[in-house]
């Protein structure tokens, strides 16, 4: 290609617009699951109450803290690179990645406990939705981690600066979205029966 698209002066605007449109898509993806949750919580209130007590609230709460912290670290990273602080960015990305790993590890502990107890997606509607929702969210966390690794590699090569930080910014938006989804999932699944 002869055209240098990066040179187009609208690039940052287009990237931001693109990620917001993508997040709108993501919102509707999870929106359908939340709709299913709402319907069955009304029609099967008793079941949902009984089953949600089986989940480990402490681990859920811990995971909420972990993910919130990771949102903070990536936000700090973005603020840093806007001022050109590459080293801070790298530290923040690494921290975010580590926290995401921690989140998944805790999730793994929860799931293996569930399976050990004989609670599977087919057990009942509540667990069907629980595994579906946390599973889809988990996939988003993994996708986010892949992005962090990619950003770290690029950052290592010094790709980002105060002038150019678009990939970091849009990944940050994505990561906040993943965080927000969890902020809804946690109370709906663990706290409100």
């Amino acid at each position, binding site marked *: 290609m002869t*055209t240098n698209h990066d040179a187009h002066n*609208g690039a940052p605007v287009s990237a931001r617009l693109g990620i917001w*449109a993508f997040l709108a*898509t993501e919102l509707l993806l999870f929106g*359908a699951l939340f709709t*299913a949750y709402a319907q069955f919580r009304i029609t099967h209130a008793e079941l949902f109450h009984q089953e949600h007590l089986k989940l480990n609230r402490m681990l859920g709460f811990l995971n909420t803290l972990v993910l919130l912290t990771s949102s903070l670290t990536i936000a700090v990273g973005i603020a840093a690179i806007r001022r050109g602080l590459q080293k801070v960015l790298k530290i923040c990305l690494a921290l975010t990645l580590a926290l995401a790993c921690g989140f998944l590890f805790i999730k793994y502990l929860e799931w293996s406990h569930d399976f050990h107890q004989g609670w599977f*997606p087919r057990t009942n*509607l509540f667990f069907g939705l629980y*595994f579906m929702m946390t599973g889809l969210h988990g996939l988003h966390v993994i996708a986010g981690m892949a992005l962090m690794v990619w950003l770290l590699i690029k950052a290592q090569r010094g790709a980002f600066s105060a002038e150019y930080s678009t990939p970091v910014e849009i990944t940050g938006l994505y990561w906040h979205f993943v965080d927000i989804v969890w902020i809804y999932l946690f109370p709906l699944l663990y706290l409100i029966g």
Partner: protein
Amino acid sequence: MADHATSSLPGDRGYLSEQGWRSWALTMDHKRIGVMYIWTTLGFFVVAGILALLLRLKLLVPGPALFSDHTYNVLFTMHGAMIIFLFIIPAIPSALGNFFIPLLIGCRDVAFPRLNLFSYWIFVAGILVTVGTLVAPMDTGWTFYTPYSTRTSAAVTSLSFGLFLIGMSSILTGLNFIVTIHTMRAPGMSWYRMPLFIWAMYATSVIQVLSTPVIGITFLLLAAERVFGIGIFDPAKGGDPLLFQHFFWFYSHPVVYVMILPAMGIVSEVVPVFARKPIFGYKAIAYSALAIAFIGFLVWGHHMFVSGMSTISGVIFSFLTFFVAVPTGIKIFNWIATLYKGSISFDSPMLYALSFIFLFIIGGLTGLFLGSLATDVHVHDTYFLVAHFHYTMMGGTVMGLFAGLHYWFPKMTGRMFNETWAKNAWWLVVAGFNITFFPMFILGMQGMPRRYAEYPAKYQPLNVVATVGSWFLALGVIIMFANFVRSLRNGEPAPDNPWRGLTLEWQTSSPPPEENFHEIPTVTDWPYGYGNRNEASRDH
């Protein structure tokens, strides 16, 4: 508008110069990606069309014939699923949209060219996965209603993943177009100077981005239902089969506007060019596209009046449904008014555009019977419905696509097609279409249900008429495609602006150079300034 005509040297193949498979498979040129979409989608149009001919052939007789009832069910499922997901959704947006959005707004490519190529290849990956399901062919109908789809032995799970990928491609394409239209218009092209095709594509892209994820998650849930048994759609586990239908139609209703809006956009481009008149009511047409997109999200329940949904929901959905008719009517009236006092030449793009209007009026008006609660109960799930959606989708979208293919063929290929043969094909297509599908309205009114491999003998005469009509239709399409294929090599070289259009794509060479415009044009007026400005005051 400044004249940027870049009359190329004879024999200059523009963006088509580069040869070899890599120049296509790895291209980030929106035009080449558009061309790949055209071949892919038209390929499935042909396959699905052959399946339709087989279905019609079996329906010549009411009893068992030709192949088993199960095969019939498989064939109509494949016909529907292919036409919807592999042809009609991507046909105009991904194919012609990719090629012409940057050309019509005067830029060199879409906003994210790499993402664009990626979209194409996950589309292909999705197709490969769905083709893989032929080992246990689907027999669920393209609607995949649960719990049938969770129980059948067909390969529903892998099909779900295939369609999920195709949906992802659709989302990313829509996202790409939204950003392109927002950020990459040529200098001077304000929103109200955009061609109406762009308005239509903008509305379309918004629908794609907002509705497709819901079918995506629905397919995932369907797969999870079959693999893990989560039971959300299974009444035996306390789940709700109607929830599947709500999810399904939350996508599949808006998506009919993904199919029809771009075709309306093409008609809005073609009619003024060949009537030599400014488009009548530009803003009304532009805003009605957005209105259709918006209202389209609120009416999915009109597919479910007899599904067991509550009466009050039916009433609300019916009421909202009628408001889709208003913006649609606006467009129809505006196109007709554009013809008034024009100087109309009947070249093949115009013939297809006019037949779009003619057939879509029938499709739209018969929609009133389906939107009204009392009459829908009777005609729902009958051949009346089949006729209605073929009048809107084939009489509408496909005619719009054909109009677009003829209109832009010279630009895309640098060749003219044979106009006489194009007209001959048009007669056959339009006549064959009406003979095929009009009898289905009557069959539906008489109560013949859809998806019937065998039917009571009293319905036979009209079925015979429909089947015979399908042969004329097929012949017309064959002639049209033969004309295109022959003209690819042997057609007369096309001038830059064979139809004397004012939109930007006509200001570059045919075919366009790789970078579209040697110099990005500056826009100083709207693109419909046909006619004598002294003869009537401007009311735009």
